[in-house]
């Protein structure tokens, strides 16, 4: 059995291993070298590699992302982190107009091997500007690769692949996954940036999810198993470019689709999954596809409201029950329930 470590430690190992073997890899971001070390994900790396490899920066997200791009054009491999995904919006020109397009619009003569790590917040009243997961926006951009690791094993393997990829890759990490533990091999290994992963096989319903919602889907699947409902859970891993082969295969087998997405409903990524399934497997569908997403609202801060904002494993399970003609279970969410933390011993930082 491989050793068990946390998701955050897996991210740390990925960066450490890549920096050790390639002097061109450097970390860049607000606070990458400070004592909090990006929630621990860059812990000890400044001490180990020094200020020329782990580089803090002024609060100039736009220019700093451009600097990383320039460094990538000059042959380095920057791993930039925006500790909250929202901060990357200050750099949207450099990400969308520049990094994503330089290789194509210059006829293949300029490649941009850069990684930008983006962390999605949730809970503890993070609110509207510290909780967005704009993966569907970024996945919409041709030329930008978008990964969303959901387990410690995936975090390390996908991030290593991202660092060694010669294209701009956005690695979107959910804050509530940081303390998740799992088996992670030592040393370097890569998960190729190619396709989604059937994380659990099943026969009755296909649940497509990503990032933290994959963990919630697995929790729902575990409950449903006790009722004799067999779920096939597919973890997207790579949202752009999206390879839908395994998703189509799965729906042809189960006839039922639940697309779970931590983004807002309209124009979100679940819509892309549904569109592809309907285009390519509609005769296999026994029921209309179901989307489980955030409502089209910014995130409120009071838990009395956010408790009703985020879908839960309970909602995924109920959707599956309905698809299979079974009665939904009632939920017992109260306004004061502590649903604004991932588990009771998680006290932050957020």
């Amino acid at each position, binding site marked *: 059995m491989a050793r068990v470590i946390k998701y955050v430690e897996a991210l740390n190992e990925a960066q450490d291993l890549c920096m050790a073997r390639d*002097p061109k890899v*450097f970390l860049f971001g607000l606070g990458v070298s400070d004592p909090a070390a990006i929630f621990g994900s860059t812990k000890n790396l400044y001490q180990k590699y020094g200020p*020329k*490899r782990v*580089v803090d*920066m*002024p609060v*100039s997200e*736009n*220019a*700093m*992302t*451009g*600097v*990383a*791009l*320039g*460094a*990538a*054009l*000059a*042959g*380095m491999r920057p791993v930039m982190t925006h500790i909250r995904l929202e901060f990357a919006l200050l750099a949207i*020109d*450099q990400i969308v*107009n*520049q990094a994503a397009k*330089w*290789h*194509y*619009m*210059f*006829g*293949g*003569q*300029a*490649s*941009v*091997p850069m990684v930008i790590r983006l962390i999605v917040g949730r809970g503890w009243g993070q609110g509207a500007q510290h909780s967005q997961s704009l993966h569907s926006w970024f996945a919409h951009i*041709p*030329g930008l*690769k978008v990964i969303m690791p959901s387990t410690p094993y995936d975090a390390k393997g996908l991030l290593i692949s991202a660092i060694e990829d*010669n*294209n701009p890759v956005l690695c979107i990490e959910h804050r509530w996954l940081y303390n998740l533990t799992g088996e992670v091999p030592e040393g370097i290994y890569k998960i190729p940036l190619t396709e989604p992963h059937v994380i659990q096989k099943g026969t009755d319903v296909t649940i497509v999810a990503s990032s933290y919602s994959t963990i919630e889907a697995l929790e729902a699947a575990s409950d449903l198993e006790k009722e004799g409902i067999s779920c096939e859970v597919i973890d997207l891993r790579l949202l752009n*470019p999206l390879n839908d082969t395994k998703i189509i295969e799965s729906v042809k087998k189960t006839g039922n689709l639940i697309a779970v997405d931590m983004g807002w409903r309209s124009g979100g990524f679940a819509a892309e999954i549904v569109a592809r399934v309907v285009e390519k497997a509609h005769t296999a569908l026994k029921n209309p596809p179901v989307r489980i997403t955030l409502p089209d609202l910014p995130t409120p801060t009071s838990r009395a409201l956010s408790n009703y904002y985020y879908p839960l494993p309970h909602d995924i399970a109920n959707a599956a029950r309905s698809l299979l003609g079974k009665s939904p279970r009632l939920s017992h969410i109260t306004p004061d329930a502590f649903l604004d933390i991932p588990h009771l011993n998680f006290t932050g930082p957020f």
Partner: protein
Amino acid sequence: MTSLTPENSKDLFRKALRVRLIEQKIMDLYEEHEMRCPTHFSIGQEAIAVGVCAHLSKEDVVTSAHRSHAHYLSKGGSLKAMLSELYGKETGCASGKGGSMHLIDREAGFLGAVPIVGSTIPIGVGVSFAAHLQGESKLTTIFFGDAATETGVFYESLNFAALHKLPVVMVCENNFYSVMTPLQDRRPENFEIYKIAQPFGVFCAQGDGNNIDDVFQISQRAIEHARSGKGPALIEFKTYRYVEHCGPFPDDHLAYRPENEVNEWKNKDPIELHKNHLLSKEIITEDEFLEWTRIIHDEIEDAVMYAKSSSFPHRHTLEQDLFAA
């Protein structure tokens, strides 16, 4: 700091003349409607590109923005590849995927230019920063206009370059207009662009962008400052564009620029000024000038024929180059 030697002076004039004649030819050809991309001409602003690039070698890196023809050519970018790109041909410097607003010639040290105002400034800084991280030094020269200095990203880049004492020379071509909006509608009265550098402790200077000698001398000081490890430089040159912001036609009929202002600048044409200077000092003769003009025209004709006879990119290249291997 040295003034231009007669040899240098002749050489730079010839280079500026070449840019002028190329731009004029493109303006003529543009009306055939076969160059189908937004094109921002450098007519009137040639002295700056030529004077600055006089101090740069092939290994030095330059980046620019939408009005990049003069920079691209002065850095040694391929004329054939540039014209082909404007025609959208497969032999274009961006394989027909970029057009005039996305010129590139990595071999000549022209990193790439994009039309979002200010966007290449941090990218250029990043090239120098990469060398800095590896204990080396790489000079990057970044061309932009007056409006780019109004962007946040410009200040952020200047701050960062100053913080790390990077060898970056930022060259502002102040032609007083952002499309049709004059400087006085965008900046407080008496604002001096080059002085933006002062709080950052960065070398700064201002010069006459229509005087090749002035550009040569000021950029020499700035480049030497940067190369010697003393940090970045911001130099500003005042100049003027003759035709519209985008496209080959004059737009004086729109009257957003005072007529006397336009005429004043045309009377200070960089090519005419320098030619008269060289003639009066007997550094060149009228015959030599005509000979150069003939040679340059031949080069241009040859390049135009190359571009016109090149093939369009094949259909299958549409999907190519989205990702690097």
